[in-house]
């Protein structure tokens, strides 16, 4: 929610850096700089033209009208028309010049953000909710485009308009000019300080809105619980309280807005009243022409908006700087270096070992076949320094072609361990080798091409069934026969063929919704397609019914022959797929052996596989505790 956003609004350090934050946008604006600056120039010109209109009015009044020169009136009128048309066209030109380029700037920044986030490590995504990243990709970028289109341009335009307007007025009558200009500074000050106070109230309203949204969301998401237990009174109470708080803040905002408008309207009117008295007196004494007086009032009117808006524009700059900081907060997070080994090799040799080369080397066999973990440890980068590492001193060897089951209580680190092999997380200690090749020496893409994974939570993307499955193949393509084979292994052929368009049916968020079991089977097909050399499966059959599970297991057993596989298992039936079992306990591998061996020797394993109490007195709930 907005309340917990990492960027603090009004710290003194932030104020100094507004300009710097905004300057960082330059690389994205650079490609359109020619149009952008031309547009700003056009805007200054158009704005100055609006100051010329009163001057023409003055000339008409004092010249042709006073002299009853009808042709002069015509000429004056035509000039007025010409300037008016020009002003409108220039405003149009400005908007036309920047419309597409600035939409392009927004799009290029969004593209950059998307590309960057895709390449940030999984640990980053664990820390950042998708909502936070999404609000940067939408709201913040829109705000930055608006900033480039309006406040930035109009800061320049308005200041130059004020200067030009003051100069014209001074040249007409310095006494009247000073009177008109007298409220500028106080007005500016009032507006700027108002925007500061107002933004505090606006921020508070936003936070309260966020809290209210949370309550609303929960009341909808938890509707089954609420219905099941009767109305959730405390929730309704909280809703009412938050709703009134928000009402209070919003009314305060309306009052503040009314107050500033009162000042903005009344102050210049009072000054204009004084101008009128002094002006009329000067006209009466002949020191001033009527036309000049008319022009003065018109110019004073024309300058009101530029002066009033400065406060509002500065506030928008401030908000844009915040948006920019939020954007760069993500962009500044460096993707992890590809690999220490590859980088070192790249410095000396022209290229890191190609997958083909690695394969040849592996084929010779260095006696280190299969998947080997050597003294592997892992701790989350944001974990407190005194916390125990999630994994520690893991030594495990899955022989080439062997299937190893990984068993452990909730929170023992099974899923974390499986994430280390395709380098979704980087092991913080020790080495992992695939057929003797240290994965730290390969690029991530190479490692992931070697290792296929099926996750506990089967995610399908908005694409056809075929595309979703073939994602698992090395270059995303494989022939139809291979696709069918993968479906057969996962026992998915039948239901895929029953879909409206068979394998070409769109699934995922934008397509048909499949049941948990169906999604899990497609995720499994994705893992086995293209016959990967290494397979990592995280409890791949948890959502399947008994009969399907048995059939999948039979088919999977054939695939697993000749594949080096690590399979996380919760149930004896899944363990049966494996040649050997590794027991993970408290972040360490405490036992390795066949199912029968471990059933005989390990009480913990027995407890996990049969539910047998380990020692009477402590409930089985103890293992359930997972505090991370």
């Amino acid at each position, binding site marked *: 929610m907005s309340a917990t956003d990492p960027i603090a609004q009004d710290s003194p350090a932030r104020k100094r850096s507004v300009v710097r934050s905004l300057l960082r946008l330059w690389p994205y604006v650079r490609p359109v700089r020619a149009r952008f600056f031309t547009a700003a120039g056009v805007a200054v010109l158009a704005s100055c033209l609006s100051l010329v209109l009163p001057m023409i009015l003055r000339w008409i009044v004092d010249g*042709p009208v006073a002299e009853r020169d009808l042709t002069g009136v015509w000429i004056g009128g035509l000039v007025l028309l010409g300037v008016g048309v020009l002003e409108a066209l220039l405003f149009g030109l400005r908007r036309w010049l920047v419309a597409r380029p600035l939409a392009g700037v927004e*799009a290029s920044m969004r593209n950059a953000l998307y590309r960057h986030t895709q390449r940030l490590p999984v640990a980053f995504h664990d820390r950042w909710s998708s909502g936070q990243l999404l609000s940067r990709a939408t709201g913040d970028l829109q705000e930055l485009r608006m900033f480039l289109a309006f406040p930035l341009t109009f800061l320049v335009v308005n200041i130059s308009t004020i200067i030009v307007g003051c100069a014209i007025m001074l040249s007409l009558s310095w006494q009247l000019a000073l009177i008109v200009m007298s409220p500028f500074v106080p007005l500016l000050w009032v507006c700027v300080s108002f925007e500061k106070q107002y933004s505090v109230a606006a921020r508070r309203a936003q936070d309260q809105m966020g809290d209210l949204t949370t309550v609303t969301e929960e009341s909808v998401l938890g509707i089954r619980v609420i219905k099941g237990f009767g109305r959730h009174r405390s929730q309704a109470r909280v809703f009412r309280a938050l709703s009134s708080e928000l009402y209070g803040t919003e009314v305060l905002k309306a009052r503040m807005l009314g107050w500033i408008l009162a000042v903005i309207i009344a102050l210049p009117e009072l000054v204009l009243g004084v101008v009128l008295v002094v002006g009329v007196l000067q006209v009466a004494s002949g020191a001033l022409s009527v036309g000049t007086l008319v022009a003065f009032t018109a110019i004073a009117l024309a300058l009101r908006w530029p002066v009033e808006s400065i406060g509002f524009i500065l506030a928008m700059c401030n908000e844009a700087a915040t948006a920019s900081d939020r954007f760069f907060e993500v962009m500044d997070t460096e993707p992890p270096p590809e690999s220490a080994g590859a980088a070192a090799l790249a410095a000396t040799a022209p290229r890191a070992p190609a997958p083909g080369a690695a394969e040849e080397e592996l084929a010779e066999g260095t006696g280190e076949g299969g998947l080997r973990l050597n003294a592997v440890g892992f701790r989350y980068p944001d974990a407190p320094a005194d916390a125990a590492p999630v994994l520690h001193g893991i030594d495990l060897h899955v022989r080439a072609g062997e299937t190893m089951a990984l068993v452990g209580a909730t929170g023992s680190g099974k899923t974390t361990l499986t994430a280390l092999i395709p380098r979704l997380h980087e092991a913080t200690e020790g080495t992992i080798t695939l057929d003797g090749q240290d994965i730290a020496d390969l690029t991530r893409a190479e490692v*992931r091409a070697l290792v296929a994974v099926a996750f506990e939570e089967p995610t399908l993307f908005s694409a056809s069934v075929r595309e979703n499955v073939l994602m698992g193949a090395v270059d995303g393509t494989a022939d139809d026969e291979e696709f069918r084979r993968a479906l057969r292994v996962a026992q998915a052929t039948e239901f895929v063929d029953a879909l409206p368009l068979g394998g070409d049916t769109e699934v995922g968020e934008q397509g048909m919704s499949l049941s948990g079991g169906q999604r899990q089977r497609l995720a499994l097909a994705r893992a086995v397609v293209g016959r990967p050399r290494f397979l990592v499966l995280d409890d791949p059959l948890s959502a399947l019914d008994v009969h399907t599970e048995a059939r999948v297991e039979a088919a999977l057993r054939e695939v697993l022959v000749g594949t080096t596989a690590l399979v996380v298992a919760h149930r004896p039936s899944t363990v049966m797929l494996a040649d050997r079992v590794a027991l993970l306990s408290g972040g360490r591998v405490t036992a390795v052996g066949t199912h029968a061996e471990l059933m005989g020797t390990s009480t913990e394993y027995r407890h996990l596989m049969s539910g047998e109490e380990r020692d009477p007195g402590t409930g089985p709930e103890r293992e359930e505790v997972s505090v991370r």
Partner: protein
Amino acid sequence: MTTAVTDTDARRPDPEEHPDAGGPARDGSGGDPFDRDQLPAPPGAPMQLLRSLLRPERRLVVLASVLLLFQQAAIQAGPLLVAIAIDSGVPAATDGDYGPLITVAVLYGVTGAASGVLVYAFYRTLGRACQGVLRDLRGRIYHQAQALSLDFHDRYTSGRMISRSTSDVMALRELLDEGVQTLMTVLVSIVYITGLLLYMDVGLGVATMASFVPLYLLVRSYRRRAGVMFTRRSTAIATVIVKFNETLNGIRPVKAFRRERANDSRFDELNSEHCRLNGGTILEMARFVVLSRLTANVTLAAIVMWSAYRVADGDLELGVLAAAALYVRRLYDPIDRFAMILNAYASASASLTKIAGLLAQRPELAEPAQPKELPERPAAAPGREVVFDEVRFAYRTGGEVLPTFDLTLAAGQTTAVVGATGAGKSTLAKLLARFYDPTEGRVLLDGVDLRDLANPELRRGVVMVTQEAFLFSGTVAENIALGRPDAPREEVEAAARAIGAHEFIEALPDGYDTDVRKRGGRISAGQRQLVSFARVLLADPAVVILDEATSSLDIPGERAVQHAMETVLRDRTAMVIAHRLSTVEVADRVLVMDGGRIVEDGPPAELIAGTGRFAALHSAWRESLV
């Protein structure tokens, strides 16, 4: 030992509830209003809703309107005073008579100050009215969401419900926050200025009014063109957002299957499309602003030219010329803002229509006019007797789910209900929970029709626990005390202890006071289920309905949940939609359902010994256990 037997996803609404929806396909081609996100609302419902929202605030609205009329009268007097100053003040002052000038100057000052004070009062008054409307609307949506049936929620989906109460209210708020004041001010100022121009000189007034025709046409064409473009743009940004979210939520498979490059190019495509449409809407706005500014400037030039001609001719006072020029400029000043208001108005009215559609839904379950009470329950008696008396259930659309049947559940009995997806298990459970009312017949609790029980009394009698054990933000203790918010801490702990949840709760950073949404408060799926059982134990209903989760935990987790479930079922009448053999084995009675009918009924041991469906199912279960 336990095994999940059905292949369904807990997060998906049970398809058996919508036999008329045509299978799981979301093809969107049917006429189902839910698919198109348009609920039937009587024509004029949005306006009616707006009126009913404004009714409580009508005093404020009237007051604000009066304030605005005076404020605009004060502010628009300015140029008229300038005209008087020039036309009468100057000649009088030349003659040494400062009376008229002083009068004008004092009036100018007074009107200026008055308009300031009045504008403050106007904003304050209207602000209170608008915020009152929004508060009222939020409350109505919230209460409507609580009142509507689960069936409705399943079909409407939580995403839509949430966007009704957030982004749609926000759209209306944007209009009320910034638009309404400006709109009212603009409208009043147009009337005043036109009136004043007509008063000063009929010809000038009529000329100005003539310029409204092209402006009106411009506004109309902009609304039409921009409306289409806005819809297309919002569709485009929605697809960008979906892609973005999908990538972030599936970042592990994205990385594991090296989807980065493919995603880059797909995202680039979607993003470019949005960029194109975005640029298009900006250009559309530019077109409107230029054309309206052009109309305004041409009108200004024409009026100045004509009046200057007439002044030169001696037909018009010079002051009137000056005032006319000032007025015309004021008149066209807010044109740019007008376009923004139009945008806000368009999106707000679309949102209001959607909200009105939601609020027009009538909750299907009526509260009893004369609620009855349940008979006193002897302290020792376990649970209450449940009777389905000639009950039949069909959807209003016609699909019959449960043909007429009779069923009696003895007090204290645990009944397991098994059957394939779509057999009618959960409909049976929902009738007992009174999430639905039967189409025919009655559901009786100790002889009292469920329809005669007020909601609090009903929930003291029957509680239903669903698969997903949702935790609300707040502490663990608050979550357990959901059914009885006033329960003392000792009772909360006693319930947790009885369920076997005490140990893990104590191990959380702040024990029972740990906020479940904060870091460190992460609670596993098995633990959630334990918390949800503790809830039931504390609420202590006579009848409990349990929809067992299908997804499996690890074995110790399953055992803990099994143990907790047995604690909850003890001494209550219980109906369990069972997915696990172990659950069925502890039941006193098993109902096997197929096609809405109860096809087998008896104690588990008896059914196993027979040759029916349950016996077959049971042997399959047994085989799966190693």
